[in-house]
């Protein structure tokens, strides 16, 4: 509980007994955009008093690529590859969100096999994305080995993606009207083998990192985000569930036949400290991987023969109208606000990036942390800058 004292009584650390004739001053520290633990090109300007952080201001925009503006110039189908680049660690989920938004506005039906395959690939990508999050979080804490272990497992998922669609990172596999092509011969068996292999490895991560004494000391009671603060700042995904709010779009508004599957929503318990601390946000991701494995197993069992793609024209026209569709991405709710004027390309496409909203809570949580806790905080929020800046 030392950290609690530290957070509630910051004056003890920096007022104290400094002789009055010594001039002390605060340091303005520029963290990023090139810094090992800002996960890309995030820039945080820190106001510090020694090791104590008084104020943290994130500056964004270093990875802005005009994705929303580009959408107005390309056709609906041509925009799918651009969604890969939003949150480049979960391309399948981004594809799915965009496809569902367009399908809802166009009233396009998707064959059942495509639905199940979409679920399988989305959940596989969720596992891959959480593996990166967990591994790089270990790296932020100074543990190098979990990163390599998690990338070893992720490699198999990338191989599965490669076998299905030829790409490993930017897949563009889930397209409007279904998926691009059926999975190859023997893919389902490979996927089952991976799940069996992967389930046994989760215990390794827990032994190596989750329950490691030093790791728990570094992350528990750090960056506490209470449930009301999380809701007020629009946090979603593991950041929201880490604060103890059981909100998951796959349960709340099921899409893609998620209502047919049996799974739980893991939430933070405050097991090692206070509810909503960094450790809770981290551990929710570990538990979500277990649930994803459960969902994929059920989806593989339900997989039926049949077509995987509804026929949609190459240059499609959607009826004039407005639609807003959100899906549960690994990092939170990804929303597409699609406005159509009846033409071949969107009139306006507004993307709600979960990382962007999650990052907004950083200046609230950062004050009275130590310098090393900033790395813990950013890592537990798990931002991907491609999605923050779009």
């Amino acid at each position, binding site marked *: 509980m*030392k950290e609690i004292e*530290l957070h509630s009584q910051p004056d003890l650390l920096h007022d104290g007994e400094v002789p009055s004739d010594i001039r002390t001053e605060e*340091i303005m*520290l520029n963290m990023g955009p090139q*810094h*090992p*633990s800002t996960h890309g090109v995030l820039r945080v300007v820190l106001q510090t008093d020694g*090791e104590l952080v008084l104020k943290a201001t994130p500056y964004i925009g270093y990875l802005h690529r005009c994705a929303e503006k580009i959408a107005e110039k390309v056709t609906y189908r041509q925009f799918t590859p651009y969604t890969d680049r939003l949150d480049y660690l979960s391309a399948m989920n981004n594809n799915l969100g965009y496809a569902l938004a367009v399908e809802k506005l166009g009233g396009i039906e998707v064959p059942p096999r495509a639905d199940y395959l979409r679920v399988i690939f989305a959940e596989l990508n969720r596992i891959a994305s959480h593996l990166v999050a967990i591994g790089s979080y*270990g*790296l*932020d*804490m*100074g*543990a*190098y*080995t979990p990163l*390599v*272990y998690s990338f*070893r*497992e992720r*490699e*198999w998922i990338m*191989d599965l993606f*490669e*076998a299905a669609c030829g790409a490993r990172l930017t897949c563009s596999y889930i397209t409007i009207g279904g998926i691009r092509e059926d999975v190859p011969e023997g893919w389902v068996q*490979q996927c089952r083998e991976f799940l069996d*292999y992967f389930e046994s*490895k989760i215990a390794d991560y827990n032994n*190596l*990192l989750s329950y*490691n004494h*030093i*790791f728990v*000391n*570094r992350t528990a009671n750090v960056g506490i985000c209470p449930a009301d603060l999380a809701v007020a700042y629009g946090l979603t995904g593991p950041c929201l569930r880490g604060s103890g709010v059981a909100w998951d779009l796959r349960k709340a508004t099921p899409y893609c036949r998620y209502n047919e599957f049996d799974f739980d929503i893991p939430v933070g318990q405050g097991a090692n400290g206070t509810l909503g601390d960094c450790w809770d946000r981290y551990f929710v991701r570990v538990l979500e991987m277990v649930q994803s494995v459960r969902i994929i197993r059920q989806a593989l069992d339900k997989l039926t023969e049949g077509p995987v793609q509804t026929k949609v024209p190459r240059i499609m026209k959607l009826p004039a109208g407005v639609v807003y569709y959100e899906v549960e991405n690994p990092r939170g709710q990804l929303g597409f606000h699609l406005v159509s004027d009846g033409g071949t390309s969107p009139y306006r496409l507004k993307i709600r990036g979960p990382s962007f909203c999650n990052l907004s809570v950083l200046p609230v949580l950062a004050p009275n942390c*130590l*310098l*090393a*806790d*900033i*790395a813990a905080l950013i890592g537990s929020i798990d931002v991907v800058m491609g999605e923050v800046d779009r």
Partner: protein
Amino acid sequence: MTYIPQRPPVQYKGLSLVIARLATWLGGIVIPLLLQLAWPVFIAAIVVIVAFVWVVGRFINPLLPWIVRDFIVVVGLLAFACIVAIIGIWGERKVAGRIQSRLGPMRTGVWHGWAQSLADGLKFVQKEDLIPREADGPLFRLAPYIALVPAFCAYLALPFGVGWVFRDADVSLLFVLAMLAIEVLGVIMGGWASNSKWSLYGAMREGCQLVSYEIPMGLSLLAAVAATGSVSLVQLGEAQSGGWFSWLIFRNPFLFFAFFTYYVASLASCKRSPFDLPEGESELVAGFHTEYSGFRFVMFFFAEYVAMFAVSALATIIFLGGWHSPVGGPSTPLWFLIKSTFLVWVQMWIRWTLPRIRIDQVMHACVKYLLPFTLLLFLGSSLWQLIDNPTHPVFEGFAHLLHYGLGVIGLLLLGLYFAGMVYGYWNRNRLVGQMARKHLPGA
């Protein structure tokens, strides 16, 4: 299903070509040949070294003036320190690779990437010597020497065996500790002179961490000194000549724990994980050597590995019987090297397993736990001396039993380690996972 890209052939030119050819020849032909003939080569090397030492000591040494003799020995020690650093860096990368179910360097020099450190060194020498415009030039240039030279100076008083020491001073333990403590000056100097906020943070962390951990480190060693009554490293080593159970670590229960407190404190004083805050990569970019490049960076890097071996050597001499064999037989510097290398290996093992501690936790751990604990150990070990006497009635029964009991605990720990090693090797295919087998040739 898997796609393994073919590596494009590397084009070498000029000096690099010569070195690449030499390294390939050494690694591809000479080293496998030596491995084929490992035992004969090993025995022949020992015979040659013994003969060389005998001939030099008997015939050549008396003829040389002392200054030439000292010069030769110091150059030899410097070469030894460099070899320790080079092998240490390569070994660290191999250890990291194996712990992380990958291979580490495998290409440079053909045989398990043995020339990787040499190639890296060559690269660093060729780099531009960059000094930031706003840096304090003279201090910036001076700092790497202040870091490396004292770490090397510690070797001048380290005995590798009886007679295998440059200067057998009466206070050699104090000399070594003092030399290792000076290293912090170079780090603080470098961090300050860089005129970068990250470097300054690293330097300040190093300062407060090192100064704090010097105390438990010294107190742990003081317990051993109190048990033998000498601060000469040669005499400390010679006091443990009776095989496994006469080692100071098994002398009494307080010294048993003093070894571990010393080891933890030495991790902190070498800036090794989990105490690697001064260069904590994810927090401070690279800490105190953020602004250093080229050969100046190499000197900081070398200093770390040289100091790593020095503190392990100190632990070996003082607690683990130094150059004495655990099971009888001749006492040679070879035993000293084996034990020290094992301790260095444990440092690497810890680094690639544990996360980093936060700065307030580092200071809490030292001031609240380690310092009182080592004080207690020192007190207890000193009191133990009162009854540690074969004629004392207590010693016959209880103390004698405890003495051997500690030895058995040590044996068990070592046995556990070797059992784990054998288990890991036996099940390497299952433990390392299918992915490593599929993607890594030779795994």
